């Protein structure tokens, strides 16, 4: 189970961010908004990668900045 290996695998998919391991839970913090993960197929591949790297769950951290895109939309 390696957070770094998962981070690299996700980056190769075009999902850029940092990965924190909490036991078998991987927490992904994206650089940028969550747009790539709105693609269902890409999301499924990301979850599969987490599984291949020994994690049972992959969760997207929802940070303070996760809603920034919303402000842009409203503007």
């Amino acid at each position, binding site marked *: 189970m390696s957070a770094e290996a998962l981070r690299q695998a996700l980056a190769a998919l075009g999902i850029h961010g940092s990965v924190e391991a909490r036991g078998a839970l991987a927490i992904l913090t994206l650089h940028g908004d969550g747009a790539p993960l709105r693609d269902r197929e890409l999301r499924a591949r990301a979850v599969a990668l987490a599984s291949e790297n020994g994690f049972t*769950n992959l969760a997207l951290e929802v940070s303070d900045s996760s809603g920034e895109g919303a402000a842009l939309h409203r503007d």
Partner: protein
Amino acid sequence: MDETLATELAVDVREKEKRLAAWLGEQPSVLLGFSGGVDSAYLGCVAVETLGKERTLAAIGRSPSYPDEQWATARSIAERVGLPILEVDTHEMDDPRYAANPTNRCYFCKTELWTVLQRVARERGIATIIDGTNADDRSDWRPGTQAAREHEIRSPLAEVGMTKAEIRFLSRQRGLPTWSKPSSPCLSSRLPYGTPVTAPRLRQVELAESALRELGVVGDLRVRHHGDLARVELDRRELDDWLEPARLAALRNAVTSAGFERVALDLRGFRSGSLNVLGGVSAA
């Protein structure tokens, strides 16, 4: 689905319902462990219809692990179907074996519940204690089942082979609002095994889930407690919508308002028993 097949299935399900009513009809009286969920609501409805109010009693076990919203639903359902209820306090939180949150935590909770209900049954001369375990439940990891066996609790839905889907179908036929209700196990199921069960942690989960419901979350929902971090599991069909930036921000606000510092959205969505998987109790 082919219309003939659908008709045959409906006939088969109604046959099971007849067997259920016959089973209940053989009991002098029943005390039902009643949560107000899909299974016990349906069972309570058939029980009171078969045995009448004088021979049926539904008991709601109240403790911090039982959400207020579910308690309100249970009372409302009971009133709707004319099911007499009795509310009893249970004290599983005082049992250190339960509070330590081992993988067989449910065993200690159910042991407390069934011990209390056995006393009630004895005092009131009620012959049989029943629960809403269905045929599907028997294939799951359910340490609570052992406690039921030890206390001679009967599970008529399982005994007549009725599955969750069939109970939903029959509930809908009867106009029970629970027919489409998501499963809602006790709040302690949101804490990873080994994380002590405390009233403040349960309250935090309850507040977060309640805030998310108010925000418009529908279908299955679990807020899993990982200390400072809440991991939110939503119905998979809802995930696309909730990954929109504005909704993510609203989701975060709702969950942090319950006292969590960090919020994460599970990208696989809701999975029943996901903490069993995370804790290595069952396969991914």
